[in-house]
């Protein structure tokens, strides 16, 4: 029994992109001498080994090549170059559904798909009751699949693929559709698969919390190449930082290298005794948040937002806030026209759009400011610790005392930041401190 389940070396995938469908015809007619396509490399020179007992997480933005990689490994896409070998069986729960027939019942679909995947009908029949219990669909198990919700299809798919007991299970974002308790069940199953060192799991997810919880090794794919890989925590942190601030791990590495190459600073420059006002009134050079692609922008002529960042409780710029520490949301504005009586506002919401904070300087009884053209103002919004671990959106706006809801400039859901750390709550916020038990008494 070999220790390595997957060996892949130099896997690359090129898609040919044709501007017009006739372009392909022109290429065929000239035996390829007239090139009418451009190449798109979805995956470049990807190599890795998967050993028994490993749970490998693959993260990256949409279009980074995650699904391409999984499709190559599951045999539904041919690699342009490179080779891979799989020991044992690989089952892959790609996207939704996995090619079930909508007119057949869950039970029949399980039997058919298992046969299609090369399992003997007897083996599938033997596993049927386990699958039925795992999927927990009740009477729906015997109803046609077209009556299933997307969550139910995922339950059936995962229950089936997990129960068929493959050496390697590939799960591609599909679980996001299931409800929380089923997700928990799936995660427990994946943990069990890797626990006894006999199987492996490949997991693609956008949920960084579960990636960190489940995986023993994380690979960050970016534009088809491995950007960083290793222990889950540092890779996920580097990825999050890149997503929110646009700074890659290379930046940090080179910054570190630079720092180590320099003579020790005289101590004073790093100490907090350094002139506070100087740092408080300048826009930090690195660590700024990048505008999210969900942003709704309503720019105005008199004032513009020039930077947005997060500061931790010591005033240091950070990519993500710690769950148990206060932090500040900060932004800088530049006035292009004089604005008397300016009011600044901020809003923090969850990814699902639940509003957590919505306030402005007027509501907080702050003095209004008079601004001349060319002036810059930095506004800090101190936040209490206790937001749940996860991602949040920030919106901001500037208005005047006279018309607090007529914005001079407004950016809705324009920036994202993360709250990081050990999740101690399943809801929007956590307790102020650890729960206290009085001790059992009779």
């Amino acid at each position, binding site marked *: 029994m070999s220790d390595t389940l997957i060996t892949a070396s130099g896997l690359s995938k090129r898609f040919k992109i044709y501007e017009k469908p006739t372009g392909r015809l022109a290429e065929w007619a000239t035996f390829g001498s007239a090139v009418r396509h451009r190449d798109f490399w979805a995956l470049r020179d990807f190599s890795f080994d998967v050993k028994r007992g490993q749970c490998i997480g693959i993260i990256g933005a949409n279009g980074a090549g995650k699904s391409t990689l999984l499709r190559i490994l599951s045999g*539904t896409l041919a690699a342009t170059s490179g080779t891979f070998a799989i020991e044992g069986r690989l089952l892959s729960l790609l996207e939704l559904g996995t*090619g079930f027939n909508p*007119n057949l019942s869950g039970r029949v679909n399980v039997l058919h798909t298992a046969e*299609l995947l090369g399992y003997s009908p007897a083996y599938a029949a033997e596993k049927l009751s386990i699958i039925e219990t795992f999927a927990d669909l009740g009477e729906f198990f015997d109803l046609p699949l077209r009556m299933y919700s997307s969550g139910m299809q995922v339950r059936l798919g995962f229950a089936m693929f997990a129960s068929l007991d493959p050496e390697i299970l590939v799960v591609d974002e599909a679980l996001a559709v299931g409800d929380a308790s089923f997700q928990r069940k799936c995660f427990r199953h994946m943990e069990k698969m890797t626990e006894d060192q006999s199987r492996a799991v490949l997991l693609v997810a956008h949920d960084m919390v579960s990636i960190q919880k489940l995986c023993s090794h994380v690979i960050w794919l970016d534009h088809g190449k491995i950007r960083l890989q290793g222990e889950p925590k540092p890779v996920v942190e580097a990825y999050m930082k890149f997503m929110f601030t646009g700074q890659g791990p290379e930046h940090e590495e080179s910054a570190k290298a630079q720092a180590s190459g320099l003579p020790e600073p005289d101590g004073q420059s790093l100490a907090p005794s350094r002139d506070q006002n100087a740092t408080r009134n300048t826009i930090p050079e690195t660590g700024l948040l990048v505008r999210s692609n969900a942003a709704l922008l309503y720019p105005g002529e008199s004032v513009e937002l020039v930077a947005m960042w997060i500061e931790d409780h010591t005033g240091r710029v950070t990519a993500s806030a710690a769950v148990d520490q206060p932090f500040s949301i900060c932004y800088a504005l530049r006035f292009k026209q004089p604005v008397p009586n300016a009011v600044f506002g901020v809003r923090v919401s969850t990814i699902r759009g639940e509003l957590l904070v919505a306030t402005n300087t007027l509501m907080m009884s702050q003095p209004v400011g008079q601004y001349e053209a060319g002036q810059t103002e930095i506004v800090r919004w101190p936040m209490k610790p206790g937001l749940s671990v996860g991602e949040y959106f920030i919106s901001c706006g500037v208005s005047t005392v006279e018309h607090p809801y007529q914005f001079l400039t407004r950016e809705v859901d324009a920036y994202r930041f993360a709250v990081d750390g050990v999740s101690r709550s399943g809801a929007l916020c956590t307790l102020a401190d650890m729960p206290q038990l009085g001790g059992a008494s009779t």
Partner: protein
Amino acid sequence: MLFSLYQHRNFIWRNAMHDFRHRYAGSSMGALWNVLHPLAMIAIYTLVFSSIMTPQLDGRTGRFAFILYLCSGIIPWTAFADCVSRGCGSLVVNAGYLRKLPIPEPVFVAQEAVAAFVTAAISFGLLLVFGLCVGLPISWTWLLLPVPLLALLSLGFAIGMLLSTLNVFFRDIQQWVGIALQITMWTAPIVYAAKILPPAYQAVLRWHPLLPSINSVRLLMDGNLPAAWDWAMMFAWPMVFGVLALAVVRALSDEIRDVI
């Protein structure tokens, strides 16, 4: 390719049967439409050719002779046309499966061919019963009827495989197939008798890919054996298209799933 078809034989058979039963799902007469469609077509052709245009059949007379002649042409033709037109679209239609499961592409074309063959077999059963009722003499040559039908369907499968692969890249092909099938049908004596054609054209028709099989079906029904030329052509054409299809599928198979 043949091995992969054998491996997936259960899947092919099951899907073909399912398709056969549920093609008309939701209609009140359901699977009966599989037979009603060809029956309606035969009724129309009979009306047009026997009362409006007088058919000229060599050596056969009687009220039912033309119906038998017509049916023995239309049934295999319909099977072939179904096989090609549905086969041509089958990869695009089953894109969902192809994207998610490592099933070989020919399986989906084969499934259409099998469904077409089953329909043809049932129709032939009915036709022979009808023949017996109107006095067609029973003959041992009827046992050979599946041979030209199978030859026709291998041709349909090969062409379907070729077109379905190309159709993935150029979706217009599916539209052209309908037109091409009409042309093929009317250039061959399927619903009319060969006798009405000029002799020069009849000589060219010897090379028509469909005619050897359809001629053979008719001969076997009447208790005669087809000529050597018919036997040879019946198998030569599927071979030619089979090799062609194999070459095209080999060259393009890696790219099919990229674009589908």
